[in-house]
């Protein structure tokens, strides 16, 4: 309750400020809020729209969330996502005559390995050359984009893709389908399953505990003799790998081939989701749902009220700013109640 209060206040404050903006545009804030709710969660279609947008964020957030347990701030999600997508297409082309489950496993495993290895460069730079991992991961993301575009529009281009240079398409039988009746592809289930697995890995295993010790206090970790290099590289590999799989799923389920449209900012949404969830893998599920919902509601209020696309970005920006401000208030809550609140929260999460 104690921790929920500041977040509730953040949400209320966001609605008030945003409502003021809406009123200034000569619209009734309550009508607009109602439409936003309808657009995000108000119907079967709204849910399908929200969940489709939440799906890729679940896995791309892992490229920030997992290294964050080790104290690394990595923001290379978008690049890893692109490389994962491209790898999946290329592997599927090589394996088009292989049995479906075998081909699927290798398609996504290869995306995992390529994505993971790419992000590991940032971790290795940090450990052996003291390169700032935040900057290097961002720069690696741009290098990945350049490589991606070069390969897609050069050597790997399907010559018949004239005005939109693309790779050859994933063979039909290796595409990833939709969850029946939901209008969302199976990546949603994969994303949730991995969020839960990573939660258990981080909070319920020795590996996770040791990782958090390294992230929390590097001296303690040294005293305990933890192999930091191994942990850092493993964390980057795991996080980057999952974001790579996200790109692979996107291509196999939605685009069918890899082209510049894959560069659409989903990786950057993943960074945001990881931060707002305070790097908690279960909270990421809720934050992804919130992000997807905001995007879907943006669609509807654009069409209903003629708002510009930026208006929903304002809402999202305000909300996350308020949440971050709210967290700074937590310092003013007495330690004892904070501990109690944390215990309650952990119990709720665990149950």
């Amino acid at each position, binding site marked *: 309750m104690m921790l929920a209060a500041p977040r509730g206040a953040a949400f209320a404050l966001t609605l008030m400020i945003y409502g003021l903006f809406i009123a200034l545009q000569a619209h009734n804030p309550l009508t607009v809020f109602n439409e936003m709710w309808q657009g995000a969660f108000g119907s079967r279609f709204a849910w399908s729209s929200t969940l489709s947008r939440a799906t890729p964020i679940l896995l791309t957030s892992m490229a920030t969330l997992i290294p964050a347990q080790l104290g690394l701030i990595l923001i290379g999600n978008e690049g890893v996502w692109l490389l994962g997508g491209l790898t999946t297409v290329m592997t599927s082309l090589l394996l088009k005559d292989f049995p479906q489950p075998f081909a699927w496993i290798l398609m996504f495993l290869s995306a995992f390995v390529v994505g993971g290895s790419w992000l590991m460069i940032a971790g290795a730079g940090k450990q052996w050359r003291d390169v700032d991992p935040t900057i290097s991961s961002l720069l690696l993301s741009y290098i990945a984009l350049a490589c991606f575009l070069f390969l897609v529009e050069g050597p790997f281009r399907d010559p018949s893709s004239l*005005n939109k*240079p693309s790779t050859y398409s994933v063979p039909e039988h290796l595409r990833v389908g939709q969850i029946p009746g939901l209008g969302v592809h199976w990546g949603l289930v994969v994303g949730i399953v991995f969020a839960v697995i990573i939660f258990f890995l981080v909070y319920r295993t020795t590996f996770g505990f040791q990782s958090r010790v390294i992230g929390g206090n590097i001296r303690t970790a040294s005293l305990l003799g933890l192999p930091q290099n191994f942990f850092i590289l493993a964390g980057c590999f795991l996080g980057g790998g999952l974001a790579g799989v996200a790109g692979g799923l*996107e291509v196999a389920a939605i685009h069918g081939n890899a082209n510049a*449209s894959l560069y659409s900012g989903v990786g950057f949404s993943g960074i945001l989701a990881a931060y707002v969830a305070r790097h908690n893998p279960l909270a990421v599920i809720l934050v992804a749902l919130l992000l997807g919902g905001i*995007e879907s509601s943006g669609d*509807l209020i*654009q*069409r209903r009220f003629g708002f510009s*696309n930026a208006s929903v970005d304002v809402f999202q920006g305000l909300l996350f700013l308020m949440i971050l401000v709210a967290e700074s208030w937590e310092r003013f809550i007495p330690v004892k109640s904070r501990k109690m609140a944390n215990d309650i929260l952990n119990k709720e999460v665990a149950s």
Partner: protein
Amino acid sequence: MLVLELLFLSSMLSCGGEPQKDTESLKVGFIYVGPRDDYGYNQAHAEGASVARGLSGVQIIEQEKVAETIDVQKAMEGMIEQDGVKVIFATSFGYFDPHVVLMAKKYPDVIFFHCGGLYQEGVHPKNIVSYFGYIDEGQYLNGMAAGYATKTNKLGFIAAKPIPQVLRNINAFTLGAKSVNPNITTTVIFTGDWSLPVAEANATNSLVDQGIDVITMHVDSPKVIVQEAEKRGIFVAGYHANQSVLAPKGYLTGAEWNWGAIYSSFIEQVRAGNFPGNFVRGGMKDGFVKMSPFGPALSVQAKTNIEQVKAQIMQGNFVIFKGPLYDNKKILRIPGGVGLIQTDPILEKMDYLIEGVIGSTGL
């Protein structure tokens, strides 16, 4: 009266299934990949939509900055499910495959207009209209204006990607310039993507530093290039929409889309229960493309000559791509005596830069 070039008239689409009630307004959705006010590609479409808004009994619903991902599928689906839209204009090229194709299969009663073309009979659903215009005619006239205006004989072209649509524009521009000034060269810079304002500004400055004194472009939003060119005191020929307000001194003319007339015609046809056909193309004479009014820089003689060629284009008896035409690697691309008319599908597969263009397709 507007004459549409219908290469493949749909004979099989059953429009009788859902008769339009006159009492109810027809809801039409427009989807743009960028902002509506980009002084370029998206603004041209949005201006077209706003002309169509003037039609009685038509309600226009718009959504901007929709990515070529699951986002556009959900935007189309939302328009249909939540707003009751019966006609959708998906205006970005990248929306087509798989997004428009998928939605057209799912909603056979809705007509999907897609800008850019790719429609294949028998492969794609019959409720898709793929439309596009021969804007290279405008770039040819831009080239003539550039050929008259240049003092250094060096022209510049800033483009997104070396794809057929873009290469055709670069070649038409260069042919237009060479028709009035055989000594010119066109230096091309490919920025790599459709909307990269910083790269476009850098490209403009780099071209000016090389002594280039007329620039044109094929990117989504020419805004930055036009402003930068004006700042550096050189001439500029516009593209997509009218950018003359951004460069009152240096704006020569521009190749603009004329979607207002086309969209109104499409929507009227749908309301009358007709189907415009699966594959619709047209040029300046069909009302798809128009020119910006001339800026102050051109001489009276230059303007008269450009108007003369424009009149020939409007009559439909002007051929831009005629042999002998060599590419800039000295390979003969169109043999002597051959003239390719605008509707020739081979022009939609152009993969070379002609003699006089400095640059490489990278292929």
